């Protein structure tokens, strides 16, 4: 098993005709993802990589039965795309776009409230259930099907982690990049809950970073509800306070958001902290023994 996406996922690509949209549509198809529809207003009736393009999400869902969507729409229109997907009844919306105005996302979250939709991201690499389905921009070939669930705020640091795991022959059930923004649709606790319930996930890797208190909330949840081993690394222990480290959400403000506090909370909750980012794989290997 895996979480959120598998062979039954029928993917819609919003912004499929753009450079990134068309490139990653092709890569997802090559990986084995069932990409059933694309959507770009004004491009309805055309095709990208053999995938039919629609003018609205509503018509795409009606014609193809799409149940998940990935968004490559530029920042100014991305919040609108998220709301359109939710309005059309899409259950899983993955927003890759980086740099969406915060106030647009505030409005989008207000719109999503009460609707049966899960948003992953924005500003995320997406997710992959190795061997089954890829809804994201990660290189599929570094992954290996298996039993470790990975959840992370970062893209490339997740690739690094996954490569370390695969290098030790440790496969992954699902890898979820929840995104680097301060306002995220899905947080660590949401994913931990799903991994804890997934019987094919035997251990969990949690990659956090400076900024906010999401890791502390994860620590609380791990302490109370997670019985599987959790290995964690928090990026940014050497980051200066008050500076935004690339990700909009990665900033130490005052006394909030320090890597050391997050590590201490996770460690106290029973998680194993990798001593450095090059030793996440070996730490998982030891934890699985």
């Amino acid at each position, binding site marked *: 098993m895996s979480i959120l996406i598998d062979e039954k996922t029928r993917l819609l690509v919003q912004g499929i005709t753009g450079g*990134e949209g068309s490139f990653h549509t092709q890569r997802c198809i090559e990986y084995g993802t069932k990409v059933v529809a694309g959507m770009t207003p004004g491009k309805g009736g055309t095709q990208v990589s053999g995938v039919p393009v629609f003018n609205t999400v509503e018509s795409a869902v009606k014609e193809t039965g799409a149940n998940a969507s990935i968004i490559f729409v530029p*920042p*100014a229109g991305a919040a609108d795309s998220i709301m359109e997907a939710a309005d059309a009844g899409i259950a899983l919306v993955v927003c890759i776009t980086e*740099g*969406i*105005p*915060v*106030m*647009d*996302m*505030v*409005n989008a*979250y*207000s719109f999503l409230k009460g609707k049966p939709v899960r948003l992953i991201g924005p500003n995320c*690499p997406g997710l992959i259930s190795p061997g089954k389905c890829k809804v994201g*921009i*990660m*290189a599929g070939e*570094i992954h290996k099907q298996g039993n470790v669930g990975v959840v*992370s*705020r*970062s*893209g*490339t*640091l*997740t*690739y*690094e982690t996954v*490569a370390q795991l695969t290098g030790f022959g440790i496969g992954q059930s699902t890898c979820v990049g929840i995104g*680097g923004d*301060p*306002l995220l649709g899905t947080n660590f606790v949401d994913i931990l809950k799903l991994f804890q319930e997934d019987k094919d996930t035997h251990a969990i890797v949690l*990659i956090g*970073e*400076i900024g*906010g*208190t999401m890791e502390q909330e994860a620590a609380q949840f791990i302490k109370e509800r997670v019985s599987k081993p959790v290995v964690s*690394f928090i*990026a*940014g*222990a*050497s*980051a*200066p306070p*008050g*500076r935004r*480290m*690339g*990700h*909009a*959400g*990665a900033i130490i403000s*005052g*006394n909030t958001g320090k*890597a050391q506090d997050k590590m201490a909370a996770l460690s106290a909750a029973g998680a194993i902290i990798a*001593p*450095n*980012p*090059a*030793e996440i794989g070996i730490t998982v290997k030891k934890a699985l023994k």
Partner: protein
Amino acid sequence: MKIHEYQAKALLSQYGVPVPAGDVASTPAEAKKIAAGLEGKVAVKAQVYAGGRGKAGGIKLAADAAEAEKSAAGIIGARLITHQTSAKGAPVGKVLVEKVMEVRRELYLSIVIDNARKMPVMIASEAGGMDIEEVTRTSPEKILKVHIDPAAGWQDFEGRKLAYGMNLSTAQVKPAVKLMANLYRLFREKDCSLAEINPLVITADDKIMALDAKLNFDDSALFRHDDIRQLHDPAQDDPFEARASEMGIKNYIKLNGNIGCMVNGAGLAMAVLDLINFCGGNAANFLDIGTVNNTNAVVSAFKVFTADPDVKAILVNIFGGMARADTIARGIIEAYQQIDIKVPVVVRLAGTNVTEGKRLLAESRINYIEAADFLDAARKAVAAAKGGRD
């Protein structure tokens, strides 16, 4: 994005939030003229992005215009070092000359986005004029909050909750509620990330006004606010960061160490800093090169490194995903052709098109140090920066 206090006050005033009378001066003579037009005592305030100006000598009180001129002469052109600036301090190009108000009470008012609740929150406190984090820690009961429904917008009852909560008199409540509504309108219309008035004061003649103000803006929303973008003062930027930005390198932060780092992805870039630290070294910068589809960005990054005298070694760590390792390799080779690179360069490539990237580097005959993996790369860079090869 940050702006100066005088700019924030101009915006507040435009939105109907009262501020003390005053104006901005670039020369002591201008400061004198402004002071002469204001009655009584004036404050001469250094305009830098950092807080803690008062303690650092960046705010002077002057009894008359002549004294204001003298104070301004001492501040303008100097560098102000506060607990929030670097050791070199921030350059002062302008001062705000402002009428000194007789203050009866100091309050606090701000709006930020509550990331957990995903909505704006207005924070008010009776304990104004102090570090609000300190108040939150020592007297949390003095911190009042109302969350603002983005769909319904600001409601006056929310303002009354805060105003009565701060023990304002009946006469003060109405203008306070109006001020709060105006502050939210500004926050919303200009895509602020922080709108903070500290202190918000009640004057001796019972007026409510913003004595100091700080407005920060959402960088992601600047594309729709040309007026705000133009308020940016490049003199306040770190010179290396400003140069990097001019060359199209956006996610660059100057740090105190001596290893220039080029990494793709913010999380991995932070992890590289941590790993260098773990290996006993220090990075000269944070740099997320992002998704590189052409070699220009790589060459530009090398130009930024070689212009920085602190950089004693360069570490390139790329895990190709969206970015491709062969493009990075081509960029490194071009950089060697275009620039005189005197410091050792450690390269670790992985991911998309890594075989091609490694082949290009190997055949190029450039004098780089190849790293097998993440840890190896950090170790070799730390050793190289110390002058020896691992």
